[in-house]
């Protein structure tokens, strides 16, 4: 419950405060958000499976974000930034879908 409140609070603060993101971080933000979404769905699934551990969630969340940003950064340096970020988004999207399918099986039993 607190976690859901945290998400809602984050969205509200982001919309209201309109914080300035440093220009260096800006290109990586979308990918980082998608990676974090993937971690959240994974955590939700683990919770429904009854195997949720907060440490694992924290580590996977942070490593997801860092690795995704790193891949995009590397892609930019190599000159294939847009292709690589597309690839990352595709992979994360597939994972989100499979996690969502597992969650759906738990919640709706179908």
């Amino acid at each position, binding site marked *: *419950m*607190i*976690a*859901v*409140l*945290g*998400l*809602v*609070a*984050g*969205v*509200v*603060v*982001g*919309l209201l405060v*309109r*914080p300035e*993101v440093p220009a260096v971080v*800006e*290109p990586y*933000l*979308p990918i*980082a*958000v998608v*990676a*974090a*979404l*993937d*971690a*959240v769905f*994974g*955590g939700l*699934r*683990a*919770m*429904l*499976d*009854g*195997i949720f*551990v*907060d440490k*694992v*969630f*924290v580590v*996977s*969340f942070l*490593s*997801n974000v860092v*690795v*995704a940003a790193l891949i995009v950064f590397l892609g*930019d340096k190599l*000159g294939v930034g*847009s292709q690589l970020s597309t690839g990352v988004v595709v*992979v994360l999207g597939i*994972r989100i879908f499979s996690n969502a399918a597992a*969650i759906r*099986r*738990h*919640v709706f*039993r179908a």
Partner: protein
Amino acid sequence: MSTNDNPPEEPMGSELPPHEEPARPAGPAAAGGGAQPEKPGAPARSGRQRLVEAVWPPRVSRAQLIVALLLFVLGLGLAIQVRSNSDSSALRGARQEDLVRILDELDGRTKRLEDEKQRLEDQRKELESSSNQAEEARRQTVEKERQLGILAGTVAAQGPGIVLKITDPTGQVQSDQLLDTLQELRAAGAEAIQVNGVRVVASSFFSDEGGGIGIDGKKITQPYEFKVIGKPQDLEPALNIPGGVVQTLEKEQATVAVTRPAKIVVDALRAAKQPDYARSSSS
């Protein structure tokens, strides 16, 4: 990353229950809820029940707080990204090479449009000046046509001048005397002349017809009336000089009357004749 995340959960799952068993009792101890005691007793709960439990009685635990913090960061990032994507177009967050490319394209486009604008303005200027020139040329042409038309007798003319009326009851006046009269008028500066409704021009000729006089083959009868446009102060004395036209005509028993109306209208016209052989050499 993808292989790193899911597999840990499975191994973790096997070693998790031992971790979770001690954790659960700690939870109820912290929250002190009445529903908690049944948890250890019922380990085979469905996912849905777990979800409901996790959501409803809100418990403050370290795990919840950490997850809440991470989710707060996620929500923040999400909101920022959505906002920056929606308000300041696609340029925000675009990569450097994309920006350079867009800038290049815009520069090229601006230059192209500037060139086109310059070209169109030049064209407009050119058209304006040429239309002005054409208008001026047309005006001059019309003016010249009018002047030449008066000389060639193709347009009517009006202005100050005199009317010379020669009455010859005895029929003594010959064509050569009329020709002398005409020459005298021309010498005095006459600009447009008509005699009895016949316009006199450069090619006009007088002839003696049976019992009368012809101008350009057209027979006229007396009284001969000259309508002359010119400066009256020059024309009249030129006729009246001693031994001049008037005296010569009066010698032939003819009566000569010169009047000066305020306005003379020479409205006899002559068709413009295209020369058969002579061509302009100026072009």
